[in-house]
């Protein structure tokens, strides 16, 4: 008991409380978006169960020494690839993409877990190269590692998640001493190849989503519909919002996917500017504390994992909230800890567990 108390005391409570606050806010908003006031509790109940599962997973990942992951990284990498291949060949599809594996009554979304797995694997690889990455050649191992899962996710198709991989990779490389010269070269190549990407790589629906970003009215009842309705929802929320369960856009179903990808719109509509800013503030704490953990950890592997997690969350918040606000294209990237979905929530809590683990073992001397 005494041991346990000591363990609990050493947790990063600032981070944990912020996360829990976001999770509770999430349950309230999901309840509103799925009409729990009309007796439809199934989404809230499911998400609550996922939350408990997530907390348990976080507990498990906090308890053992994260250095074990270093040893099992190869296995994790293989398991990850196997899962992604299974999705491709035996997964269930919905909304035009094949992203889920049916396991009994649950559907598992391996690409969510793939994010964490890739953070672990990449952290291991980068931690073995303390000299940094100053040449294109030195990047080859990174590309070799990230390439296969990136491609597997991209062909689901899930461009959003593969972009998250890219963001994670960039963030982790950046703190590993990634040469800015290479960054600039990559940028240059990207800009030059933009026309090629537009004409040869993007699907028509993806092109439409980008066009819609600049003018949602080019396709107001197709690709533009979500963005238009989301903007109306958020904008009409005003300063104090319309109140929980009282947002006309979400309650009258004008806003589709309002419990998953567009949950931030519901926050904006029902809780207003005050509520949305409060949520962003909570995220500031989460991201700041995560960065602090990365910074204060002497262990390079742990530090890199924290940066990877931080990059993932930051990128997802930017893309998801940006999408609901009409400044980012529509992609299926969920809002961390907010959007309804078990795989994402459990994975995010596993990240929290890992962060706690790293936080508690930031100075080897303090431990044991």
């Amino acid at each position: 008991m005494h041991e346990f108390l000591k363990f609990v005391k050493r947790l990063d409570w600032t981070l944990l409380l912020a996360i829990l606050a976001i999770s509770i806010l999430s349950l309230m908003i999901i309840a509103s978006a799925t009409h729990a006031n009309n007796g439809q509790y199934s989404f809230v109940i499911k998400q609550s169960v996922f939350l408990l599962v997530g907390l348990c997973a976080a507990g498990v990942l906090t308890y053992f020494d994260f250095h074990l992951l270093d040893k099992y990284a190869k296995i994790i990498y293989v398991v990850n690839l196997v899962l992604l291949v299974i999705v491709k060949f035996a997964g269930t599809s919905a909304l035009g993409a094949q992203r889920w594996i049916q396991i009994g009554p649950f559907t598992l979304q391996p690409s969510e877990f793939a994010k964490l797995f890739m953070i672990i694997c990449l952290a291991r690889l980068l931690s073995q190269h303390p000299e940094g990455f100053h040449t294109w050649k030195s990047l080859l191992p990174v590309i070799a590692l990230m390439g296969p899962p990136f491609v597997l996710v991209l062909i689901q198709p899930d461009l959003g998640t593969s972009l998250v991989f890219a963001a994670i990779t960039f963030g982790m490389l950046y703190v590993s001493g990634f040469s800015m010269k290479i960054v600039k070269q990559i940028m240059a190549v990207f800009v030059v190849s933009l026309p090629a990407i537009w004409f040869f790589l993007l699907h028509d629906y993806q092109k439409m989503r980008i066009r819609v970003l600049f003018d949602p009215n080019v396709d107001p009842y197709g690709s533009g519909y979500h963005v238009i309705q989301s903007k109306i929802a958020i904008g009409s929320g005003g300063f104090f919002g319309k109140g929980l369960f009282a947002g006309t856009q979400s309650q009258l179903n004008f806003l589709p996917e309002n419990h998953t990808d567009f949950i931030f719109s519901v926050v904006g509509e029902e809780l207003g500017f005050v509520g949305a800013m409060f949520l962003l503030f909570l995220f500031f704490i989460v991201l700041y504390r995560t960065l602090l953990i990365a910074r204060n950890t002497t262990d390079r592997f742990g530090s890199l994992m924290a940066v990877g997690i931080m990059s993932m969350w930051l990128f997802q918040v930017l893309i998801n909230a940006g999408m609901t606000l009409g400044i980012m294209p529509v992609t299926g990237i969920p809002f961390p800890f907010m959007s309804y979905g078990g795989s994402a929530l459990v994975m995010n809590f596993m990240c929290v567990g890992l962060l706690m683990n790293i936080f508690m073992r930031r100075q080897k001397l303090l431990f044991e």
Partner: protein
Amino acid sequence: MVNKDKIPAFLERFKKKKEESRYTNIMYAIVCVLCVLGARLFWMQIIEGSYYKSEADGNRIRHLPVQAARGVMFDRNGQIMAGSRSAYSVVLPDDFKKNKISDAELNRLSQLIQMPVADIKQKIEDNKKAFGGLVIANDVGIDVATQIEERRDDYPNFIIEVRPLRVYPLNDAGGQILGYVGEAGPNDKDAEGNPYQLGTIIGRAGLEAEFNPYLEGKNGNKLVEVDASGRPVKTFDGIPVSQGHNIRLTLDSRIQRAAEDAIKEQMAKLGSTSSFATGASAVAMDPQTGAILAMVSWPSYDSNHFSQGITAAEWKDLINNPNHPMQNRTISSVYPPGSTFKVITASAALESHVTTPGERIFDSGKHWLIPKRNAQGEAFGWINFYDAMAKSDNVYFYEMGRRLGIDRLSAMARAYGIGRKTGIDLPGEAAGNMASAEYKKKVFHESWYLGETFDAAIGQSYTLVTPLQMAVVYSAIANGGYLYRPYMVSRIDNFDGTPLKIYSPQVVGTVPVSKTNLEIIRRSLRGVMQPGGTGGFMFSNYPIPIAGKSGTAQTHGVDNGWFIAFAPYDKPQIVVVVMFEHSGFGSQSAAPVVKKMMDAYFRVGSYQNATADTSATLDTDTSGKEGGQI
């Protein structure tokens, strides 16, 4: 939550580290991302908040037009001639007209309402610019209505509206008189000259058109909060509707129906004898007021078809029908009056003292100056005025014409209103024409011949009248010389039942014929209906003393048959005029219809126990309270 003095300490330590700047940069990135999102929130929620608020209301609040029910038309006994009932319509709401409707949805709707997809598309395309919800299908069944309402996701763009539907219990017996209604088109303007809202029902013909400003109500709307699939969630009050004014007609639906039935029956009979009858007209009028008791024009149309939405094919059939069912023959068609005109010749002759009732003239079968003959070639020998009228002798009236000359004849005819509109409160009335020397000179640049005076004296030549004009002529004879303006609307009601407007009988002139001479003419007309008279075959035993005149008018084709009567002879209450177009058989085709109408009026024969009836399914008060979406 965050220990505030930790931040500078943390940044301090950053500086000492090798990767110091990189962590700082990430910190900047976090702050930058969150600030961009926050700024965007501020812009949308605070600065542009009111714009988005109105957009959100526009999403959820739908202005549903509520159509005002048209005023009810009652006959003189309070029977409904034109009413409204609630009907379900499939409507494409105004807000949705710009939507791109999927082919799947159109196909489903096409199946459901039995209307080709191309027609639906055409209808939507044609009405894209007009203001208001577009009715795709009118008066659909409750099954169709529930299908659409219950499967909202299958029909996101269409709604069911309850709209008042115009109903005519008399079916085609109302026809051209009541007229019909239809949706206002882009060229129709209301009383103030403004275009109508799409789907507004306006009168297109007959009384519906003539009294449209009173009959049409004021449309209102209601505000309904709907969800994304258009299901109503809440209703707010909008602009209230006001119903149109109810109108009381002088018509008597019993006589109206009797006339219609009798004409149909007679047409069937004539058809079996291979007659080429192309139409018929019947009108009953109160000679003491000018009130129209019945007015039928055959062939007719069922006004109900128009309210339910007439198809292009049906419309084509109607307007291309060689017998012109759209024409109200009673007021819009002109015919030679034939022998029925003889009362005018008689008036002129008696009034000018060119003869006396007792003077006897020898009828050898033809006139001694110009060998014009009687219709059937008869020769009646020595006859006086009464004999001539009863037997409809032509030679006698040729002689009257000769003695009068065309000018005096024309003047008397004009005094009776021939060649002039009666001024009835219906659209499309014709004036007809009275034969005269001036007319011939003006139109044909030829001078007048005596033979033409002969023709004019027996109602041929260039004289053309409407059946209604003859009703006015015989009313004047029956009532002692007063020309009444015929009218069909006796009053317009306010919503509380008090009169807004009352139309009283209107004398527009008197005929220059003395009471004595009118009495002589009446007595002669009584003789027509007695044994030996041309109407005796039908009316000699009639329980009500009746007077009248037959007529066989020559046309370019088969003769028209006329029969005119008024009764009771001593105190006339009703004048009936019936005319059959190209029926042959002279007055014999028209007389049975006159008799049936008289029967209905006096409740004799088969009409002894007849009671008025109108379908009880109508709402007399469809003020639109229950209108709108179900």
